[in-house]
């Protein structure tokens, strides 16, 4: 436990992660429709969110040390995201299952 939490990640790893993040930033800009005109249709948002999640994962795992840290912290991180998904999922479930009623006047 003690070893884990004070784990020193080598300088080179940090640098590689930064380069990776910058590369992904360029990538997400390049595949975005408003910039390049490249249109993946409904997948546009999906691709952008996927790249963002990979970036966020890199930051969390290395810069925030989750990869080497107490697993409780990782659990907390995931739990908070899970409850966020719950908030969205139930609210959205309500909105899409509403039966639209229109005025008949």
């Amino acid at each position, binding site marked *: 436990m003690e070893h884990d939490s004070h784990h020193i990640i080598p300088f080179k790893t940090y640098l590689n992660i930064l380069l990776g993040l910058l590369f992904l930033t360029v990538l997400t800009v390049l595949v975005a429709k408003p910039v390049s005109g490249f249109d993946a249709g409904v997948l546009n948002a999906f691709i952008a969110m996927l790249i963002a999640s990979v970036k966020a994962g890199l930051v969390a795992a290395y810069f925030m040390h989750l990869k080497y840290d107490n697993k409780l912290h990782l659990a907390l991180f995931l739990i908070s995201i899970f409850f966020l998904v719950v908030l969205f999922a139930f609210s959205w479930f309500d909105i899409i299952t509403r039966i639209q*009623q*229109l*005025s*008949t*006047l």
Partner: protein
Amino acid sequence: MFWLNKAHASTFMPPQGTEIATQYDSLYEFIVIASLISCVLVIGGLAMFVLKYKRKSETDKTAYITHDTRLEFAWSFIPFVIFLVVFGWGTYIYVQMRKAPDNAFEVHTFGQKWNWDFVYKSGKKSSGLMVVPVNTPIKLIISSRDVLHSFYVPAFRIKQDAVPGRYTKLWFEANKVGDYQVFCTEYCGKDHSNMLAKIKVVTNEEFEEWLQNNPYKGLAATEIGAQVYAAKCVACHQKSAEQASSIAPSFLNLFGKTRQFADGSSTTADENYIRESILNPNAKVAKRISGEAFSPIMPAFAGQLSDEELMGIIEFLKTLKE
């Protein structure tokens, strides 16, 4: 169980105005009885243990019972099964409550601070009173002109919020002729508790006659105005001298007077001004006697009032002089 049925229906719950209300009450009675039994078990057990195992001396030894898996499973599983039964039964009733027959007669219902307006497809309008035929499915298409309201008929055991900007629905089929109370159950401000209405269930013939009938037939303009005032205006606009706490200007001595507005301009309160103030109230917002502007909270009445009714209000205002 028959006597219990009677007792509940006549004492605690409102009269049953629809078939669904009868079904509702059966489930309600089932749960009440199940609840009574579980309360007797829990509270009775509690009382029994407490009395029986009263402390006798300071050196009493108590049993060291940490758990009993079978017992604990039983009292988790049995409630769970009961809850599932109740859930299934309740959902069955709910689905019937929500699914209006296709041939239902439609009445548009609008909530507005603080009264209910009903509009029929024939163009007939009514405020605070909905007249419907007996033994006919009625579908309400509900919306609100300002904030949230909720249309609640205890005798039919139904309720639905009126949400501004969209339409919600509700249906019922009254099986007895009579008057039924309507409440607003979503808090909507000062006169929330006075936002009442009546549903009058009549025979088909009476309903047809009511639908054809012009309520203003033979009335003078001022009398029409007085009726519209009582239905739509009185909640905010008084006929007496203006109080400091009023939320809207008084109608007393209004006509012909010079009005001061929030933006500094002024005009004479003539027919055109009054017409504009009703149809598009926020175009000119009046000031209080103290000089402070009223809040622009009045909903626009464009499309709700006929020319006859507008004329009526103007004539009625002319009579409010002191």
